[in-house]
């Protein structure tokens, strides 16, 4: 993975970019774990823990203005979206 690519498009969404290198460190670790262990049946151990911790700490500092910080803790986002085993019609997100 090269250095963070320079973006020509100007945007106002760079509030989490201070975390960019922690993010790519985590994502690299995750991708490797996912394709080399998780899908091959070695799922009993969570890896990339320290990368995750650092990245998350950074995120929680910088996410405030994106209305996304609530998703940092929420586990509620799961579960409601996927009902086991059936393709139920799209439900509205009123929660």
């Amino acid at each position, binding site marked *: *993975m*090269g250095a*963070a*690519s320079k*973006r020509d*498009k100007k*945007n*106002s*969404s*760079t509030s*989490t*970019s201070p*975390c960019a290198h922690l*993010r*790519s460190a*985590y*994502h690299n670790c*995750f*991708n490797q774990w*996912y*394709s080399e262990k*998780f*899908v*091959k*049946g070695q*799922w*009993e*151990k*969570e890896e990339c823990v320290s990368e*995750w911790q650092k*990245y998350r700490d950074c*995120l929680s500092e910088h*996410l405030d203005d*994106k*209305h*996304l910080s609530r*998703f*940092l*803790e*929420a*586990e509620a*986002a*799961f579960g409601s*979206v*996927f009902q086991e085993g059936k393709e139920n019609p*799209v439900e*509205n*997100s009123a929660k």
Partner: protein
Amino acid sequence: MVKAYAQEHIYKHPWERVTSASWRKFADPENKRTLSHILEVDTLNRKLDPLSGKLYTTRALTIHAPGPWFVRKIIGQDICHCVESTVVDAQSKSMQLATRNVSLQKFIEVEEKIRYDPHPDNPTGWTICRQETSIRIKPLSALASMAEKVEQRCAERFMQNSVKGREVMERICKYLEAESSGMAL
């Protein structure tokens, strides 16, 4: 006013590779040019259930969605935040993603659901991808007449982007295939 679309695509790659590619789809810098509407992807949450082999992940996608000028004027921004929830079941080999917008919900609700499963005709070699997209523009009395046009444009954009998304997926799959067979690229 709701528009819903369903698409299917068969990847001639095993499920393990295709789902690996899915994780890399927005994150690889090489794809930034093709998927230039995706500005940022952050992982917000992750949970592994070590007993069942299920992985739960929540990611935030920041999307650049320039609309017609009047939409920008009304909405005041051309950036949209979406939250993507993913469940991967490594034991039964299924990956389900659901993405919906968290910003601009006053105006529009987009939900995209994707499933990756081993293809029944060739479970170890191919993967079937099923995708459902629904787009709902909220009726605002003053805007009702143009809302339909916006919805149409929005739908077209989505279709274009999902074609691009497939191209990127195919490319990453090829790359991963080469990598796993020891070829340098």
